């Protein structure tokens, strides 16, 4: 089923337009090269030879020299609603997503209060049908109120429309509780997404444990805090034949744990975030928490290289932003006191394109494939350019440069890890769930006479 049919977004007119002469790239569907992309009533109607398609009175976009990809899907976003709307809400968060080229996202449940009951899910879905400009799915907590002790009403939450489950922000600390959730998953389905951290090991850590934390005198979060928990949870998932998704992988040891689990046939998928792929703990020497404090923390160069290799060999299934908006007063404090998290929806593709594709580290096709890879782990349809599918398209100018934050943000928060950086590659337009969700203000559309 299409994203718009399963997830929630505001109702609107299905897009009708032609992207004239765009360079297409949809590796999962085997589509590439220059085409006219014909979108009619929110569907990809046809891929025609450049210049051959009839605009039929609809909008005609001169896309010569521009790239069209399946729009991206982010399985890890904090929309901060309900309770922290001063940081983000459904409207601003989905606008940020659309500006980043996303056609869908999953919202985490660690809100205030957490998304823990069927009415919580229903209220959010109602709000999304009013406010969301891209399709949004909501995860519910694994444990009641994220307290880690009792199970949420998982079946009722699924009936209310929860796409899956996660206590993200916190690990499911008790192996017993996670085991019960995995058993119960057989009744109700819904992938369980896991923030992997052993609080006994991470303690009061604020950054990666290593030479940089030693030099700065900051308490470290050791890599084994993440990897040992992944190993435990993968073993539980294997034993109970459950389906888990490991969130924001950061350490080389964690990749080994996921690789071993996959080799053993355990149903596990995993994600990595752009900031872990592009940055290392060296950045923390600036002691700037606004850009460089998050959990899991930025790790070593060896960890970063291991993440890149794992993205290439398929151990890492998808790229997820862990978009985590925070108010300035939570970040304009000394590093140890600052809130964890950075925003990333608006810059994810451009940052990876700039830091990893242009220098030749990653293939563009691989990045495009993994940026849309976040839907399948949750049983959702992968966005595609194939004719007959719902229109989920991002149009990019890969040569355009822009300075992050110079024109403000669509997000309500400004704690972007890319703030002030010049990036190459810009989203000009996003079609999400069949509707035009975003177009860059300065990007004018030619309308056929």
């Amino acid at each position, binding site marked *: 089923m299409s994203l718009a049919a399963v997830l929630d977004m505001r109702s609107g007119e299905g897009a009708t337009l032609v992207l004239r002469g765009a360079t297409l790239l949809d590796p999962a569907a085997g589509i590439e090269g220059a085409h006219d992309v014909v979108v009619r009533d929110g569907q990809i109607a046809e891929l025609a030879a450049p210049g051959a398609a009839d605009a039929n009175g609809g909008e005609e976009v001169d896309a010569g020299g521009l790239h069209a990809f399946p729009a991206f899907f982010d399985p890890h976003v904090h929309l901060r609603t309900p309770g922290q709307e001063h940081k983000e809400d459904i409207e601003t968060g989905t606008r940020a997503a659309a500006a980043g080229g996303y056609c869908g996202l999953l919202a985490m449940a660690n809100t205030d209060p957490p998304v823990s009951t069927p009415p919580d899910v229903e209220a959010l879905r109602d709000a999304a049908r009013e406010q969301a400009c891209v399709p949004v799915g909501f995860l519910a907590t694994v444990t009641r109120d994220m307290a880690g002790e009792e199970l949420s009403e998982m079946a009722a939450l699924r009936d209310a429309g929860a796409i899956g489950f996660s206590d993200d922000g916190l690990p499911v600390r008790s192996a017993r509780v996670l085991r019960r959730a995995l058993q119960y998953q057989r009744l109700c389905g819904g992938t369980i997404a896991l923030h992997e951290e052993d609080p006994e090991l991470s303690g009061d850590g604020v950054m990666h444990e290593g030479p940089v934390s*030693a030099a700065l005198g900051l308490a*470290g979060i050791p890599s084994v805090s993440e990897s040992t928990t992944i190993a435990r949870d993968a073993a539980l998932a294997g034993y109970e034949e459950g389906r888990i998704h490991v969130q924001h992988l950061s350490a080389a040891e964690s990749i080994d744990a996921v690789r071993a689990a996959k080799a053993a046939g355990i149903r596990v998928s995993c994600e990595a975030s752009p900031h872990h792929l592009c940055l290392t703990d060296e950045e923390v020497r*600036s002691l700037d928490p606004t850009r460089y404090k998050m959990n899991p923390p930025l790790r070593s160069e060896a960890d970063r290289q291991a993440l890149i290799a794992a993205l290439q060999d398929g151990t890492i299934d998808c790229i997820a932003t862990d978009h985590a908006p925070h108010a300035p*007063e939570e970040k304009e404090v000394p*590093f140890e006191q600052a809130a964890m998290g950075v925003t990333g929806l608006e810059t994810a593709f451009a940052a990876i394109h700039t830091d990893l594709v242009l220098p030749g580290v990653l293939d563009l096709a691989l990045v495009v494939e993994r940026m849309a890879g976040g839907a399948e782990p949750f049983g959702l349809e992968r966005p595609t350019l194939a004719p007959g599918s719902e229109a989920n398209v991002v149009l990019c100018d890969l040569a355009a440069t822009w300075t992050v934050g110079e024109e403000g943000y669509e997000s309500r928060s400004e704690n972007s890890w890319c703030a002030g950086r010049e990036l190459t590659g810009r989203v000009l337009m996003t079609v999400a769930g069949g509707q035009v969700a975003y177009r860059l203000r300065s990007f004018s559309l030619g309308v056929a006479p």
Partner: protein
Amino acid sequence: MRHLLAIDSLCREEIEAILDRAESFAEVGRRDIKKVPTLRGRTVVSLFYEASTRTSSSFELAAKRLSADLISIKSTGSSADKGESLKDTCATLSAYDPAAIVIRHPYAGAAQMVAAWSEAAVVNAGDGKHEHPSQALLDLFTLRRRLGSLEGVRIWIVGDVLHSRVARSNLVAFQAMGASVTVCGPPTLIPRGIEALGCEVSHSLDGLAEADVVYALRLQKERMSETFLPSLREYAAHFQIDTRRLGPRQLLMHPGPVNRGVELSGEAVDSPQSLITEQVASGLVVRMAILYELLAARERPAPVEGDDAQRPTPIGQPA
């Protein structure tokens, strides 16, 4: 030098200049009238968010000896107690147009943030477990007076390196002046990766005989409840510096306050090799020299357009 935030931002020449200046203030200290008019009319704010005796008193006395007007603020009883943010406190203090702010704070990077938020010269008097540059400078001064030069001198820093800002600043400072450094302590109290700072690591005092200088660190007694140590007795058995372990040619230093009978034996503290009271005396003249170098060694710059370019980028803003 615009601020004194961290030792590793100083080059050897800048360090030497401060130490040379401190020598000239040591001469002033021998006069009947120990006060000089250098900073008359300038305001120094002393802002301490953590308990401190020697650092705060020596900075405050240093400011007074230089004839500055001094405002002394402790976190207890101040607006910080009422939940005021560091940023807002900076804005408040800026209304007094201070020439310098001396700040001690429980978290790393606080001094750097104040430097970005204020026009004043900022002196880091200890930020979390990060840096304590004035301590490192006074220790260099003390050693230079005794040894002439640190070139080739072997220094062992012994104790709770993990929780010590003094260890971090001194490690960098000693090496900058040509000394070699070994850090020594139980593995639970030596941070993983510290050797990247250029030091050797030892978990035993067996090789201590090679040291020219033994620098012992204070051991906080609460470390036991955090499972860093089984007991003080076991710590003392392995790592206490006593007169049996301390050779007659070796110098002993400690940043204070000392836990007698824990990291140092009483005899070691009182031994002729101990430089501990000299360190305290050095603290005053070195802190006078720091304030002098920041405020008087160059003319106060007139606020001109483009002056912003010389200030550190505020944290959280694009560089």
